[in-house]
C-alpha cells in the first residue's frame, strides 16, 4: 500500500466493448494530460505572481488542476489495468508520449499570456466536460464533481480578461498579442479523438469534439466580442494537435519529473 488515496479496486472497470475501451483510454489520457500540463505550467507562478492574491489564486487553481489530473489518471489506471498506478502514468512517460493539446505546449509567458491561455483552455475544457454523458458512470460521476470546481476558475479568468482588456494601453496590447499568438492553437483542445463515434454510441460522449468546439466558440463570442477582442481563427484542429511537443514542454517535463527520477518509487 502506497501513501496515496486511491479509488476502490474495481471502481473504474473497463467497458466490455474493445473499441469503446480503446477510445475511452484516449479520452481519459487527453483530459488528464491537459489538466496535468496546465497545472504544472501555472504552478511556475507560485511565489512570483504579480500580486499576492494572484499568487494564492494561481497556486490554488494549479493545485485543483493537478488534483483533477490525478483523479482522471486513477480512472485510466483502472481501465488499463496494466499494473501502473496514477503516478506511473503521470511521470514515467517520455515527452513524446504525452497527449495534451498544443495550446498547452506554450511556455508560461507573461501574466497576460497566462490569462489568455488559461481562458481559452478553461472554456474549452468546460465545453468538453459538458460533452461527457452517463455512458461510463465512473467518469460521469467525477465530471459532476469537477464542474463545480471549474466554475471558480471561469469566474477568475473572465474577471481577468475584462481587467486586462479595459485596464489601459499596455495590458490591452499584451492581451491582444497573447490572444494572437495562442489563438491559432486554441482549437487543438478539440482534436478529434480516435474512436470518437464509439464513445458517442456508448453514451460516454453526448456530442463530437467538433460540436463541443462550436459550443466553445459561441461561449467565447459572448465574452470577447463585447470587449472588441478577436475570436481565435476558425481553423479545424490539426490531426497532430496533441503530438510533437515543443521545447517549452520538454523543459517543463524535465522539471516535473525531477523528484520522480531522483528516487524511483518514492512516496510521501
Amino acid at each position: 500500500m502506497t501513501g496515496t488515496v486511491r479509488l476502490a479496486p474495481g471502481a473504474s472497470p473497463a467497458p466490455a466493448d474493445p473499441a469503446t475501451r480503446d477510445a475511452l483510454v484516449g479520452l481519459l489520457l487527453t483530459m488528464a494530460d491537459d489538466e496535468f500540463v496546465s497545472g504544472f505550467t501555472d504552478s511556475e507562478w507560485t511565489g512570483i505572481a504579480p500580486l499576492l492574491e494572484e499568487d494564492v489564486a494561481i497556486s490554488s487553481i494549479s493545485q485543483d488542476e493537478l488534483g483533477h489530473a490525478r483523479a482522471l489518471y486513477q480512472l485510466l489506471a483502472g481501465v488499463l489495468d496494466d499494473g501502473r498506478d496514477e503516478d506511473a502514468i503521470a511521470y514515467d512517460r517520455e515527452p513524446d508520449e504525452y497527449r495534451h493539446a498544443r495550446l498547452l505546449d506554450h511556455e508560461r509567458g507573461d501574466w497576460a499570456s497566462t490569462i489568455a491561455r488559461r481562458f481559452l483552455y478553461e472554456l474549452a475544457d468546460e465545453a468538453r466536460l459538458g460533452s461527457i454523458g452517463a455512458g461510463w458512470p465512473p467518469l460521469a460521476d467525477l465530471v459532476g464533481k469537477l464542474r463545480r470546481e471549474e466554475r471558480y476558475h471561469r469566474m477568475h479568468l473572465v474577471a481577468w480578461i475584462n481587467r486586462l482588456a479595459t485596464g489601459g494601453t499596455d495590458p490591452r496590447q499584451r492581451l491582444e498579442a497573447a490572444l494572437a499568438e495562442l489563438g491559432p492553437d486554441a482549437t487543438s483542445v478539440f482534436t478529434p479523438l480516435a474512436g470518437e463515434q464509439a464513445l458517442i454510441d456508448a453514451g460516454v460522449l453526448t456530442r463530437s469534439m467538433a460540436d463541443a468546439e462550436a459550443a466553445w466558440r459561441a461561449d467565447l463570442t459572448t465574452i470577447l466580442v463585447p470587449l472588441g477582442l478577436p475570436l481565435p481563427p476558425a481553423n479545424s484542429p490539426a490531426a497532430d494537435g496533441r503530438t510533437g511537443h515543443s521545447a517549452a514542454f520538454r523543459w517543463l517535463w524535465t522539471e516535473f519529473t525531477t523528484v520522480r527520477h531522483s528516487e524511483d518509487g518514492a512516496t510521501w
Partner: protein
Amino acid sequence: MVTAAPRPADRTVTRADVLAILEAVADPEIPTVSIVDLGMVLDVRRDTDGIAVELLPTFVGCPAQEVIRASVIDALAPLGEPVDVQFTWREPWTSDRISDRGRARLAASGFAPPAAPEDVRCPYCASDRVAMDSAFGPTQCRSLFYCRACRQPFEAFKPI
C-alpha cells in the same frame, strides 16, 4: 497511552458505534469540525468482512485526503476489526452537506460558513460590511474576505 476498550466485549460493533467514533475525527486543516459535520461520510457499512467507510472528498485535489483516511483507520483500530476506507465520487460533496453544528463550529473558529458572497457575514462581529478580496484562499476550499466593520481579514468556505 492506554486506550479504554470502546465497547463491552459482549456485543458486536454497530454502525452507530462507528459513526460515534468518526464524530471525533477532524479535517487536519479545520481541527474543530469533524468529518461527520463536514458531510464527508457518505456511508458506513458493517458486514462480515469488517467495517467499510466511504468518504466524499470536499475538493478533488484536496491534499488532506490521505491524512483523513489514516485518521479514520487509526480511530477505528481499537474496535479490533478490519477497516476499509475509500473515497468515492459516486455522489459529489457539496457545501450543503455541512451540518448546522458544523457551520456553527466553523464560524466559532473564524471561518465564515459557505454562503453566496453577498450573504457572507464576518465570523468575528457578524457584520455584513464584508468584501471578498479573492475567491481563492490558502486552501482549495476557502476564499479571502475582509470585514470593514471590525477591520479583520477572514476566510470563508467556498459554496460549491
